[in-house]
């Protein structure tokens, strides 16, 4: 199922594998060196194809991401965020739901469902990144969590991208996730 990167950009790779699928669930596996560029390309692809998105950030604070996306040319109103990394008490702003440093996967599920109920205009979900979950969780739990999330999104006919930064840790998780995702895009060096 894995495709070699070749001369294609991340955007082209996703397009090649996911364009014919109506609501694709894409597993984007990126090398640490190209992680940021890979995320940027992928979020642009999803935004342009589907419109408004829900960005679940487990890795970088909303404020940091928002700045980077604006700099990268992404319209600020295109995303709402679920932020479980910013060290702040739980609170809600217009574009971000801060969860504090939430570490329980069950709590994250509840927050996701609540956000999906409130944000009806959301047309896709972007999870950045699954590999972060491995810091605090065993790989079996992470794989099961991702499976549950993708099943929930499928039941709602929502496309999604799950980002995974390639590390020694979690190779087994990638293998399992590749089975329940529609496309497995592996990005090495960017064009």
């Amino acid at each position, binding site marked *: 199922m894995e495709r070699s990167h070749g001369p294609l950009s991340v955007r082209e790779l996703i397009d090649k594998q996911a364009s014919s699928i109506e609501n694709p669930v894409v597993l984007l596996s990126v090398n640490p*060196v190209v992680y940021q560029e890979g995320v940027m390309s992928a979020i642009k692809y999803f935004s342009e194809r589907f419109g408004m998105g829900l960005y679940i950030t487990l890795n970088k604070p909303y404020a940091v991401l928002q700045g980077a996306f604006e700099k990268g040319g992404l319209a600020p109103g295109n995303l709402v965020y679920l932020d479980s990394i910013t*060290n702040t008490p739980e609170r809600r702003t217009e574009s971000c739901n801060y969860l504090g440093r939430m570490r329980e996967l069950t709590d994250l599920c509840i927050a996701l469902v609540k956000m999906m109920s409130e944000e009806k205009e959301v047309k896709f979900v972007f999870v950045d990144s699954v590999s972060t979950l*491995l810091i605090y969780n065993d790989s079996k739990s992470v794989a099961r969590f991702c499976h549950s999330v993708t099943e929930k999104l499928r039941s709602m006919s929502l496309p999604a991208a799950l980002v995974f930064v390639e590390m020694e840790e979690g190779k087994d998780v990638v293998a399992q996730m590749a089975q329940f995702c529609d496309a497995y895009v592996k990005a090495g060096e960017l064009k």
Partner: protein
Amino acid sequence: MSRRVPDVTYKKIDRTAMDALLHGLLKSLEYVGEQRQVILDRMGSMMLQYLVETGTVPSPDSPREFARSLRRLLIKNGYGPRIPLQSKTVQGNHTPPNLVEILTPMDRQLVGGAFPKSSVSRGKEKVDWVLYEMVLYGMTKALDDQLGVQGQLILDRIGTGMLDYLLELGAIERSDDPKILVQSVIDYFVKAGYAKSFRYELEGAPPDTFVSRYESARYYTTVFRRIRKEGSALLSCPLCLVGHSIWATQGWKFGDVFEVRIKSDGQVLIKSKVYPSTERFTEKDALRFSQMKV
């Protein structure tokens, strides 16, 4: 009433601690293949930035003074032979040599899994703490900028590499008992000049909090404070990273540092979340989630 202890600001640390850190760092990046150099270059430039911002060397805006000062610092700490003869920084319009490469002399690298005798004989040597800080800051900052919180996965792997190095070198005695091994690690780091003392305890039933207490721990008053101020949640305390790799063999995972107290007399208290090896998202959790209505 808490016991007041005089703050000891360590100026030097054992070279083996520095070598172990660099070994762990390089080892942890082996899997990224050709991309390794990109990450090392980023770390190298962050290290230089640390030296400049702490006033250890002058700004590269004065390239000759910068190169001279950096060279002097490296030579003083025994890294002279690894500085490129034609230091490009002297000319001012090229990238400086990578500090990680300079600090990892070939004769101290693992050769086929074993250490050359020179490594052991250099065990008593010391290096300036500021160089150690520079490496810790540079690697943490570069990993945070590039990878965010998941940089902790690489930092934890650095801890495993450090442990392997120190065990192989004989600086830490092997033990199958994790508590004994952890104590050997603590003894090593205290003796090496990392901190004046370190104690730990677990809180909660079942345990969910790891409490660390240090006296005169320079990492926390310099690097840790700085990276926290810069918005990073990463923990790169070498003693912690090695400890984490030992506890990981028992299935424990370390979470966020949620309480930090760094007192003016050099006492440090750190509380971190710890998680046991049990599954944390069970089939029951998955079922409950699937039944939630949106």
